[in-house]
């Protein structure tokens, strides 16, 4: 029997997930609303002083993006797990790491990328200047990709567990610290006019590392979870 080839396997997963995301707008919009709402909590809690907001802006935006990504990760494997298609994916003849990469990519396109694109709006509310906003988006791009990849490992480990959502956050947060540290602090450096190249290089390097290693860890975790 001729199995579908590698390329058609990847495109099939991509197409299916994007179509499903289109039909289930909640999975996409909820994290986005969460991002916006969390960002607005801090000025409400701390006060509207413009200088203060400018100082905490980068950090707050990044933390909000991190939390929104964690929230979004719950939908990565859960729906497929519940209707049995995850098991089919694991059993399929296509290499699982590549299938996982395709799934994570489509997930990032609908959850991570929107964060990058809406960040400027949040940033403006924190009185950040255009240069800073530019750096913000440049750091959020590899940052959200890394978070999706790292998060996919956690999602694969906790799919199907009771209270898996809380556990997922507990597992991923310590691992996501470097991304948060470099992301937020690089944007702060941009705010004071200092060099941001180092931080951006680190984030990109980390993203490359995640791209190459995470799919294998996620695939292994999926196999274990689906036994």
């Amino acid at each position: 029997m001729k199995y579908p080839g590698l390329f058609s396997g990847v495109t099939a997963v991509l197409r299916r997930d994007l179509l499903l995301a289109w039909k289930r707008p909640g999975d996409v919009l909820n994290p986005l609303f969460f991002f916006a709402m969390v960002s607005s909590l801090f000025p409400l809690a701390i006060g509207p002083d413009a200088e203060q907001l400018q100082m905490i802006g980068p950090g707050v935006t990044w933390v909000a993006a991190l939390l929104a990504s964690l929230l979004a990760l719950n939908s990565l494997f859960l729906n497929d797990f519940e209707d049995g298609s995850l098991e089919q994916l694991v059993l399929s003849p296509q290499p699982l790491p590549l299938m996982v990469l395709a799934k994570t990519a489509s997930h990032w396109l609908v959850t991570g990328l929107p964060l990058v694109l809406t960040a400027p709006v949040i940033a403006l509310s924190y009185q950040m200047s255009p240069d800073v906003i530019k750096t913000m988006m440049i750091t959020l791009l590899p940052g959200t990709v890394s978070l999706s990849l790292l998060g996919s490992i956690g999602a694969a480990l906790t799919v199907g567990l009771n209270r898996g959502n809380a556990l997922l956050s507990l597992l991923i947060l310590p691992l996501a610290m470097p991304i948060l540290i470099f992301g937020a602090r690089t944007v702060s450096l941009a705010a004071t006019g200092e060099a941001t190249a180092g931080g951006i290089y680190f984030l990109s390097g980390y993203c490359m590392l995640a791209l190459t290693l995470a799919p294998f860890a996620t695939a292994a975790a999926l196999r274990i979870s689906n036994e």
Partner: protein
Amino acid sequence: MWKFFHKLASPPHFYRMAPGFILGFGVIGILLIMWGTYAGLFLAPIDYQQKDAFRIIYVHVPAAYLSMMGYSIMAIAAGIGLIWRMKLAHAVAAATAPIGAWFTFVALATGSIWGRPMWGTWWEWGDPRLTSELLMLFLYFGYIALRSAIDDTAKADKSSAVLALVGGVNIPIIHYSVTWWTSLHQGQTVMKGKMPPEMLNPLLINILGFTLLFGALLLYGVRTEVLRREHRARWVKDMLAPETGDA
């Protein structure tokens, strides 16, 4: 010699041979700790900058060292268990976690206590080692939480092994990023400079002593974990309920 190690990997042999090691490591460890602590607290000369406060080092450094050694052992054992499917390796990983987590807690607490006279604050985010240590405690928590969330022992072993390995890869990255982050402000207070032998030797003795103690606690825990994983085996039945006949 290799036959010895081979035998050790067999659960019933390990179970029988471990108590000797546990006792040996434990006794020698405790003796070394008593010696090192006495020498460090009472015999070592006073530090020029920190006066007597530096003596916390004799507890803090062994704890911090073992917290990191513990995670390494956990990750390596988990990897061995995952790749070569050795139940004993998984048992080692499972047993190391709580002990490593406790030592990480002690390292953090003593580090914080030490920080009070040194920096004037109970917590200093600007110290990279303290912050990295805190994140490592979170990694331990995650590992323990994942294990307890999965009922099936074999599945728990494998899942937590993946997590331990991912965490292990991330620890150097975490440490580097925290160090970079703290270097953005001022430099940290470091106990640099040569330590005179009267100060250093008790520290080395304590490190060795606490390592042996850690080993003893670890072996004891591994014994329990082995029992849990072998509970259906013949040798367990013969040992615990010899009167009952064949199933």
